[in-house]
């Protein structure tokens, strides 16, 4: 079994957890508007950004993600009113903690993208992919098997 | 500055309303008159301020300003006023009070040759005299 680092020029793998009501819909809108962003991004749909456990984020890194994005409704706009406020605290602490352990902070990002922000969705995904491409493959949490 | 009902409803305020036929209370100070006025840059009290002064009963300040004389009665302000206030009419009322009641003359025949250029139509001079003198 390989270490899952593909041959050829480095193509980052970005896993994006998107809340169903805003960011996933924003992603849909990016599609309907035929905007483009790199195919490196793969989206997992969750009901709310507050439903994204650090376990999933770390798991993605272990299993080969070079970057992880969590996207949710803008603060104040949560479909469930308060979910993203809790998420905001959880993720800010996690982000700073990962940085403390020596992970590049760019690898774990949180963005607020509304259902109407298809362009923002595409822009965030493009930007993130480019940033991570520049950083190179993540080896720090990755399972070496 | 003290504001009293007497000032607000002084006879001169009533007279202005009577001459112009306008209720200055109609103005809500959006400032469109001033914004539209082609000569606002040379006025010392701006058109909307004229109305505000009247709402506050501050007539004397208006009788001493240059605005009422600079106003050419082009009616741009009146045409654009969302409240339908006839500001040129009020300007006219202020002028009339000065001219009729106080014997004020804005221009005197003696200065005309100096200020008028040669091409000025006589009709303009005549109407200026009608407008600016007793």
């Amino acid at each position: 079994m390989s270490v899952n680092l593909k041959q050829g020029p480095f193509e980052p793998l970005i896993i994006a957890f998107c809340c169903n009501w805003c960011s996933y819909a924003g992603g849909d809108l990016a599609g309907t508007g035929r905007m483009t962003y790199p195919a490196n991004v793969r989206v997992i749909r969750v009901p709310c950004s507050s439903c994204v456990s650090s376990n999933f984020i770390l798991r993605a890194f272990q299993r080969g993600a070079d970057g992880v994005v969590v996207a949710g409704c803008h603060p104040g706009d949560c479909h469930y009113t308060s979910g993203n406020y809790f998420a905001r605290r959880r993720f800010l602490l996690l982000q700073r903690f990962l940085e403390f352990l020596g992970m590049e902070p760019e690898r774990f990002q949180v963005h607020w993208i509304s259902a109407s922000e298809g362009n923002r969705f595409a822009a965030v995904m493009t930007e993130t992919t480019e940033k991570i491409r520049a950083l190179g493959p993540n080896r720090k949490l990755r399972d070496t098997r | 500055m003290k504001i009293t009902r007497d000032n607000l409803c002084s006879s001169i305020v009533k007279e202005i309303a009577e001459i112009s036929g306008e209720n200055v209370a109609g103005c809500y100070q959006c400032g469109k008159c001033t914004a539209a006025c082609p000569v606002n840059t040379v006025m010392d009290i701006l058109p909307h301020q004229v109305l505000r002064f009247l709402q506050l009963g501050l007539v004397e300040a208006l009788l001493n300003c240059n605005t009422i004389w600079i106003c050419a009665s082009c009616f741009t302000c009146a045409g654009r006023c969302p409240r339908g206030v006839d500001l040129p009419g009020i300007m006219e009322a202020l002028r009339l009070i000065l001219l009729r009641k106080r014997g004020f003359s804005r221009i005197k025949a003696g200065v005309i040759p100096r200020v008028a250029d040669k091409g000025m139509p006589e009709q303009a001079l005549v109407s200026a005299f009608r407008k600016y003198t007793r």
Partner: protein
Amino acid sequence: MKRIGVFVCWCGTNIANTVNIEAVTEAAGKMPGVVYAGNYKYMCSEIGQSKIKSAIIREKLDRFVVASCSPRMHESTFRKTAAAAGLNPYLVEIANIREHCSWVHKNKGEATAKAIALIRAAVAKAARDKELWATQIPVEHRALVIGGGIGGIQAALDIADAGFEVDLVERTPSIGGHMAQLDKTFPTLDCSACILTPKMGEAASHPKITLYTYSEVEKVDGYVGNFEATIRKKARSVDLEKCTGCGICWEKCPSRVKSEFDEALSMRKAIYIPFPQAVPNVPVIDRASCRWFTREKCGICRKTCPAGAVNFDQEDEVLQKKYGAIVVATGFDVLDLDDFGEYSYGKHPDVLTSLEFERILNSSGPTGGRLLRPSNQSPPKNVVFIQCVGSRDKSRGKPYCSKICCMYSAKHVILFKEKYPEAQAYVFYIDIRTAGKDFEEFHRRAVEEYGALYLKGSAGKVFPDGDKLLVKGVDSLSGHALEIEADMVVLATAIKAKSDAPQLARLLGISTDTHAFFMEAHPKLRPVEAHTAGIFLAGACQGPKDIPETVSQASGAAAKAIVLLSKENLLSDPCVSEVNESLCTGCLACIKVCPYSAITEKTIEEKIHGKALQRRVAEVNVALCQGCGSCTVSCRPGAVNLKGFTNEQIMAEVDAICL
């Protein structure tokens, strides 16, 4: 082993142009658990769906994945397809290879690889799908309305008219609320009492409405469709049945106390009705000021009551009632002006709040409608109205706009000028906000017809000057600092939430905003619902409102309640959280993060090493849970899982998508 089917949709050329359908179908066929993979031009079409149905039967599929457009588009379609083929509809997963793939990527190789990854994740998730069933929750066909102001009255009437029983609980001795205190209403200048009292009477006599005045809700348990409320009927000391409302008792009563209804501008008796049109027209004894109760002397009311209705021994009565829906219409309070010393409020009798002014204007008020200066009973010639007292003031007051002050100040100007045409009204305002039908016109009338001088700016100081009040203010339009000699000053005091709103919120399990107004479930789309299912909001308890808004929100809340009450059973979305009790430690962190108060604690008994032990665990109320999943993350051992999005499922998706 699972038997998973994968159906790849071309979406005409929408997907097929960018994604290599054949390659994707082939790859899908090799995924773990997949026993069939096929593709078709339009999966969502009748033919497409029948292909799925026949494959389910032919291949004995026990779940399937559709790789197509966004699940937000056709998830429900394919769930129905599953149901039609005899599969539980929650055994379907969608891989979004259109919006999230073919439409946003240009390179066919990349898009194909990504489509495969997305399908792999969906397959991994589907393999862990479980059959889910909506639960049925019976509905108690009765409503509780808390608050007997115009909002509560309207909601109660609407619900009752729809044929459901309503209990209307009001804390004070009479229904009517603030509206009963008002003289006229803007912008029509209808007499407030004239339009309110018929409604009060209607509520009192409605066969489906039970009034509980002088009563309070003490406890609410249960959940949507099945609330159980504890109502305390405070001892009125007067028998509701026997009393005829003749009024002899309060005429004879020797104790005088400041009238709450008249904003302390008049005196009432210890046995009293708050105002002449009170409903019910039955007095209460205010035991704190009654001589019988404080000194055990007197008893005049009991002696004089021709009906023998006075009963000093009456005790509080506590009722337990069941309800399917609750409408909260508890109204508002007026801001306390202790922090606004510059207005001399409380120091000079001629400085009044708008509500006090309203009482003075009112013909049934303390002055019998004669508008006179409280200090010397002379007619006022100059009255200064100051708006935004405490509103839009983030340092000493409330940062929000109280919304009704611009309009009632205009109304006050007009009423004042109607009484004293020769007098002058001055209004200090910061902005004039007259959004409402006929509102701007009404305001302009105050300015233009009634000659009120509106001064843009605020008053900085109000202080006595002889027998007058000197108001120092500014007209920021002309840039003049002003002084006005006034006979009266009326302060448009900010509206605030009821001071005990947070307690009520806790009791109901709903939330309040930063200003203690009750929070609506969604500011735009669910403005009359509270977060907690089955609880609805009406009127100023949710934020400052005028009468028509209150009435319409009350009708909206009533309509929502009626929708709920008219159902025999509620069907709940099965994608809700569930607690694995054996893993649950009972830390109850989940309760703290649940926006819907859907999680409660319960005690379970279990045998550990032969000993029966009791311990607390979390319990999800499926009727209240909306499926956000916030609780799942707050649970460290993962004892709480969101059905349809379990930890195991998301983890499997992560593993699969990262391959």
